[in-house]
């Protein structure tokens, strides 16, 4: 059975007088897709930015457990890039952030920076053509090729990333995040701007990641066809508070969620 991978307790984020996230607690499990949904401005992306170290929480604790090694990380105490490098939390962005002038393949190689850096003896050995670095780079290319095949981008591998169509850029961002070999993958609206067929492919890709790579996926999404179909667990935020938490079936019938999305009935107001 799956274990708890991420535990968020009493997370509160204030920007001056504005409380963006207010005392939110939830857990995400290994090998499960956990979705965070809610109306615009509910604080979903703020929670993500906190998890990946771009914001520091005002109050609260975020614990990440590597189930394979048993190591525990307190994310709120780590610098942003260390969360990715050591705690191995990878993320994508709502407004895609690729390296536009670099090729698709290079985007995936950059994602394996830390491993290659060690293999190249922090550049010094690599400069002189050290054999171990060449092997590491070949392995990095193989890993990139694997994800290129998975995301259907192999044909465009040597083209600049900015030339990809929108859906391709979204998939490349996921592939890039997976190249860091994360234990938790955080996706910020991966289906935004995709057509129904592309959404379908995205669902398949996420399911594949969950079952084959045995990692946890945390997902912010507005597209309910994606959320309801692939999520194992859903957390609903509204005005910075958690209003519901449960399986897709439970959420679909939760009165608080319906109220948040559709508004109060006239007579109750």
């Amino acid at each position: 059975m799956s274990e708890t991978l991420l535990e968020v307790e009493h997370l509160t984020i204030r920007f001056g007088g504005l409380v963006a996230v207010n005392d939110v607690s939830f857990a995400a499990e290994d090998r499960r897709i956990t979705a965070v949904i809610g109306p615009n401005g509910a604080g979903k992306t703020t929670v993500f930015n906190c998890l990946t170290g771009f914001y520091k929480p005002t109050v609260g604790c975020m614990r990440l457990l590597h189930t394979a090694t048993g190591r525990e990380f307190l994310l709120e105490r780590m610098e942003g890039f260390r969360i990715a490098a050591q705690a191995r939390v990878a993320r994508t962005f709502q407004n895609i952030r690729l390296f536009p002038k670099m090729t698709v393949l290079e985007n995936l190689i950059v994602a394996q920076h830390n491993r290659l850096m060690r293999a190249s003896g922090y550049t010094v050995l690599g400069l002189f053509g050290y054999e171990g670095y060449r092997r590491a780079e070949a392995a990095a290319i193989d890993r990139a090729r694997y994800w290129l095949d998975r995301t259907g981008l192999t044909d465009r591998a040597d083209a600049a990333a900015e030339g990809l169509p929108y859906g391709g850029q979204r998939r490349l961002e996921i592939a890039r995040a997976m190249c860091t070999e994360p234990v938790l993958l955080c996706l910020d609206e991966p289906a935004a701007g995709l057509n129904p067929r592309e959404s379908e492919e995205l669902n398949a890709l996420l399911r594949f990641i969950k079952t084959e790579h045995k990692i946890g996926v945390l997902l912010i999404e507005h597209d309910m066809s994606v959320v309801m179909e692939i999520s194992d667990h859903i957390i609903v935020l509204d005005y910075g508070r958690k209003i519901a938490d449960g399986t897709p079936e439970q959420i679909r019938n939760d009165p608080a969620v319906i109220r948040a999305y559709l508004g109060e009935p006239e007579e109750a107001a």
Partner: protein
Amino acid sequence: MTAAARPLDIGAMAKEAGLTAFVVLMLAIVLVGYEIRDVPGAIALFTRFPDVFAACLIAFVGRVAVILLREGYRDAVMIGAGVAAFALLIGLLPETLFGTETATRLANRFMPFEAPIVRWCVFAAALFLAVRAAVGRRKLKVEDLKAREAAADRAGARVQHIARYAGPALGAAALALPVLFGSDQQAMSVAILVMTYIMLGWGLNIVVGLAGLLDLGYVAFYAVGAYTFALLATTEGIEWSFWLCLPLAGALAGLVGVLLGFPVLRLRGDYLAIVTLGFGEIIRVVIQNWYGFTNGANGISAIPRPTLLGLSWDEEPPAGQTAFHQWFSQNFWPVEYSPTHEKIYLFYIILALALVVNWFALRARRMPIGRAWEALREDEIACRSLGINPTNTKLTAFGVGAMFGGFAGSFFATSQGFVSPESFVFIESAIILAIVVLGGFGSQLGVVLAALLLIGLPEAFREVKDFRMLAFGLAMVGIMLWRPAGLLAHRDPTVRLKAAGKRAKP
């Protein structure tokens, strides 16, 4: 008059042309109106007001012609500019061809400017207008601009492809240069200067071109390198040799780069540029005012020249040393002493240093650190989300760039034999940056071309050096208009899937 001509608004036209003439007046009063000349025993201030007046008049007439062209009076402009160009040709040609006094007097009647090249520039402008009017012009559309950009990229790609052969060819040419021009001391001096700037350009290219950190104070590290060597080599009791000081100077400049980098590198873009500009000036001002340590504005002189394995390049070597020509004459065949021997030696030193920088830059681009630099230039936030330490990555770029600046500085000190704060003013940073921008960010061959253009050409045409900065500015404006990404702007991927071969994932 053509059918497309629109009715003229004389008032607006006069206003526009008058404004142009006014701008020229303000510029020309300072640049052209006054001149400081050496007279025996002193310097004197001369005025050239007729020249200023002529410049304004030419600007006014030229602007009117441009307006007429814009409004569709093509025939009138063609005839007017054509007649003017023809008249100028008749007036100027005899002087250039025969150089007699009568011819000069004739030319002077046509135009007050002293330098023939300026007169010919006016002629060229008139001719250009006439041709422009005759040929007519297509309106540029956005698609045209895009197509032009794509064409520029293709051209860059082609050059990059040729560079594989052109690079070694250029290197061989540089190696052979002293053999061809070795006897010409002037030519060797220019070659050394150009090579120094190529090295500085390649060094700065790592910082600006690869890592995207706009550094306007690069000359500071050049200064640190130069003073490190100058002080170590001239202080009594130390007096270390060039080859011992060279790595030290580089290391110290790199260290200064890292120290400056720490507080500065959290800034981005324009802010970073401004702060680095400030740091560049701070270093210079400190050197200028720390009299006890650096000898202030007087500079440090009598810096020893490098020796070749202990062989001196002097005609009369100091006691206990052998001179190169003596040694060579003893062991091989007799050679006369010549000051160019030393120049040739210096040229090979700077060539070797520059090639080291080039080798590093080309190699580092294919290393994880080089890719991280480029990724950081593209998107810093994405880099952080991938576990790349942005501070360290930027610091390495800054430090490595500074180190190469320090190497070049210590070479500068030994080749000149004298350093003073005056050599490390902001304009030096600007020239090095201009070389990088002109050449195309990240393009190694582009830097060579740009250094040849910006340093070599002005040195070759020293007699018109009054107009050097004008030509420099004109070149920069031209580049920004027609090749905003630089002469050779094309990015080659550092790794390709196709070339990597097919291997299955285990």
